[in-house]
């Protein structure tokens, strides 16, 4: 650790949110945003583990060209489980519900989110929805993929479509309520002096995410409801036999599910903005552009869904428009990458674990973003559509992007969350293992996809085996990489060194309150008098004192 602050031998027992009260009840009925963040942390880690096991089974099957471990239908159920668990119950809630919940009130100098009880309700909704979906996926199985395409999901599938949809529907309200809470909190609860342009970029990212959550999620909710109604009551909204249009389902589904990708990546970008500036010890370059680009991404996210449907029979003119709009997403995304790079330029960069993850993010996200431009090209997309190229692309964004940022953020704020320091050596090891494992898993998939290996099959031609073996080997390394932080985070809660209030010497209100913070967050309501990331004036020294 870089800090020179001496750690007192016997820490005076000051009241914080962790020791304020004890017992299961005090956690399950809490309305403290910090405790709810911990509840979310445990929940999404659980769902991540389930999704990870399913991913491991997928990679196991793909080790050999023959379908020798699972039957085709079982394989379909496994990758569906992987997709649904990871997308709806890990990636979407992960950063907003864990880090956002913990940090938004702290960063703006508030005592809590605007609606603490709704915040707790949204956690219960996620748990209930997740357990219903998990039960359906394991007990009955679902073979539609996470996309529920009609008419397969409505007419032909024998899986538990309705029950799974109910689980996702319930969890959707969790997402809506979290977004609603953030929007209201950021509008009404900012501390005196905390104007919009003094707000940390993390909060700007959460705000942009929340906009997508409240505008997109209701649409997937009604869409899944209609799918359920079609299966249960034989309504014909998406059934061609009754004059319905299956492609309408795709429009409605992607109207949410493309923006959902930005529900996953905007919070990740928000984390990276904080990490890059903290470890460059420089004010962030282009604050207003980074903040504005988050809003721009949120706005554009609703205008690009048709790029999932280039081969679904939509008109070529619609395809052209969606292609151009999809290219436009590159502009705000590139603004962010360039500004982070400019922030690092001539900064006094210290390569601590959070920054390792952040640098991993910048590289992998850039790679995932650039291959997204391949997919936004009408002609090229026909070649790579539904191949492993697209699988590799979105895993570079979701795993290489979101999970790298999530872990980077977890390391950066862990001293604040737990009051303990994680072991520096092992955290660096894990960052490298994850980076290497990730690239070994997914880079070969770009090649094998470009060569023509389709996604969602349990068998493949023999010439693809070498690349698939590399991918499975990488997935094993990646899995170990994820286990290491899990172990040492838990270890550090008991054996880790006590963390100082501001172990990184960072700016930001969350570092000016004790680690872990007291239940009411701040001893006195802070008053903000200047811009964020003011590293030039040595304000962090004040914070340390």
């Amino acid at each position: 650790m870089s800090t020179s602050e001496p750690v007192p031998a016997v820490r005076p027992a000051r009241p914080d949110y962790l020791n304020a009260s004890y017992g299961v009840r005090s956690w399950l009925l809490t309305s403290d945003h910090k405790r709810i963040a911990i509840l979310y942390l445990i929940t999404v880690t659980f769902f991540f583990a389930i999704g990870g096991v399913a991913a491991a089974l997928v990679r196991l099957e793909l080790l050999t060209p023959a379908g020798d471990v699972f039957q085709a239908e079982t394989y379909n159920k496994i990758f569906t489980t992987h997709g649904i668990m990871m997308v709806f119950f890990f990636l979407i809630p992960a950063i907003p519900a864990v880090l956002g919940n913990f940090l938004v009130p702290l960063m703006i100098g508030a005592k809590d989110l605007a609606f603490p009880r709704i915040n707790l309700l949204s956690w219960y909704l996620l748990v209930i929805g997740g357990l219903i979906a998990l039960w359906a996926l394991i007990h009955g199985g679902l073979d539609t993929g996470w996309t529920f395409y009609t008419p397969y999901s409505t007419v032909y599938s024998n899986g538990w479509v309705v029950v799974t949809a109910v689980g996702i529907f319930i969890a959707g309200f969790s997402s809506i309520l979290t977004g609603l809470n953030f929007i209201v909190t950021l509008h009404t609860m900012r501390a005196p002096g905390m104007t919009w342009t003094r707000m940390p970029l993390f909060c700007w990212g959460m705000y942009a995410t929340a906009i997508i959550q409240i505008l997109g999620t209701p649409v997937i909710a009604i869409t899944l409801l209609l799918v359920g109604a079609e299966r249960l009551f034989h309504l014909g909204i998406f059934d061609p036999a009754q004059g319905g249009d299956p492609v309408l389902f795709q429009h409605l589904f992607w109207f949410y599910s493309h923006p959902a990708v930005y529900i996953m990546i905007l919070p990740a970008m928000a984390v990276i903005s904080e990490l890059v500036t903290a470890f460059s010890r420089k004010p962030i370059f282009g604050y207003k552009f980074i903040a504005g680009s988050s809003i721009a991404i949120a706005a554009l996210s609703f205008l690009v869904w048709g790029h999932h449907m280039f081969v679904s029979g939509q008109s070529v003119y619609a395809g052209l428009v969606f292609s151009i709009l999809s290219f436009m997403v590159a502009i705000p995304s590139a603004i962010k990458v360039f500004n982070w790079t400019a922030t690092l330029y001539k900064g006094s960069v210290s390569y601590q674990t959070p920054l390792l993850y952040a640098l991993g993010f910048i590289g992998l996200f850039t790679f995932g973003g650039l291959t997204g431009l391949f997919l936004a090209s009408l002609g090229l997309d026909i070649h790579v559509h539904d191949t492993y190229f697209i699988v590799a692309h979105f895993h570079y964004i979701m795993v290489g992007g979101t999970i790298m940022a999530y872990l980077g953020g977890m390391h950066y704020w862990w001293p604040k969350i737990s009051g303990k320091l994680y072991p520096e050596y092992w955290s660096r090891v894990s960052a490298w293992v994850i980076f290497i494992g990730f690239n070994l898993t997914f880079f070969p998939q770009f090649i094998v996809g470009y060569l023509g290996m389709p996604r969602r099959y349990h068998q493949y031609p023999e010439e693809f085996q070498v690349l698939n073996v590399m991918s499975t080997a990488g997935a094993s390394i990646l899995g170990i990489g994820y286990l290491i932080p899990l172990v040492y985070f838990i270890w550090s809660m008991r054996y880790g060194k006590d963390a100082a209030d501001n172990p990184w010497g960072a700016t930001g209100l969350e570092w000016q309150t004790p680690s872990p913070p007291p239940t009411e967050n701040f001893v006195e309501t802070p008053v903000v008098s200047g811009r964020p990331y003011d590293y030039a004036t040595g304000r962090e020294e004040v914070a340390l004192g």
Partner: protein
Amino acid sequence: MASPTHAALAHDDAPPELRHHFPDLAKQREASSLGMWVFLVTEVLFFGGMFLAYAIYRETHRRAFEGASNLLDLKLGATNTIVLIVSSLTMALAVWASGRSRKNATVLFLVLTMLLGATFLGIKYVEYKQKFERHEVPGPHFVVPQDEETHQPLPRQSEMFFSLYFCMTGLHAIHMIIGLGLVSWLVVRARRGEFSERYNTPVDMVGLYWHFVDIIWIYLFPLLYLLGRHTL
């Protein structure tokens, strides 16, 4: 920072309605109000999916939709529209009365709102019952209905009209039932005298919700009952 001492003693003289994390009631009301409006935005998107489906299919199956629309009971639909508009008036009066600490008037207007809401659902029940008896409910028992004027069978896609009719009005009715639950909760609280000039946020918020559900119907009525109708 100052040394960590006890801090949570801010609101010793605060009104009982004030939650600990707000500085004052005005701020708390602002947050509640914004939260409710944001929630209503999500509701617009929620219903929006079905309005989109309706718009598309009405265009592609125009004759089926117009023919099937003629089979709806215009008198019942129109009565229900009036019932709901009046219930919005009584709800608005309840908000007005609660904000002036008029307890009895508040309870009266809330109960009137509930009665009107229940009337709406009762009439809706009669309409649904007719549809079941005439086999106009989509699914295995659906019988393609005849055109009221020509007595020719309607196109097959008339079933789609009824699919959307039941989805849209059904979801609206569920929102009405939730609204009735919320208003009855308000009645209990109003009788306890919990609302006053200082604090009537719950009445105000439920009022917004109630008006929103009414507005949905204001769109549903012309779309389903009136558009392209050629008989009364």
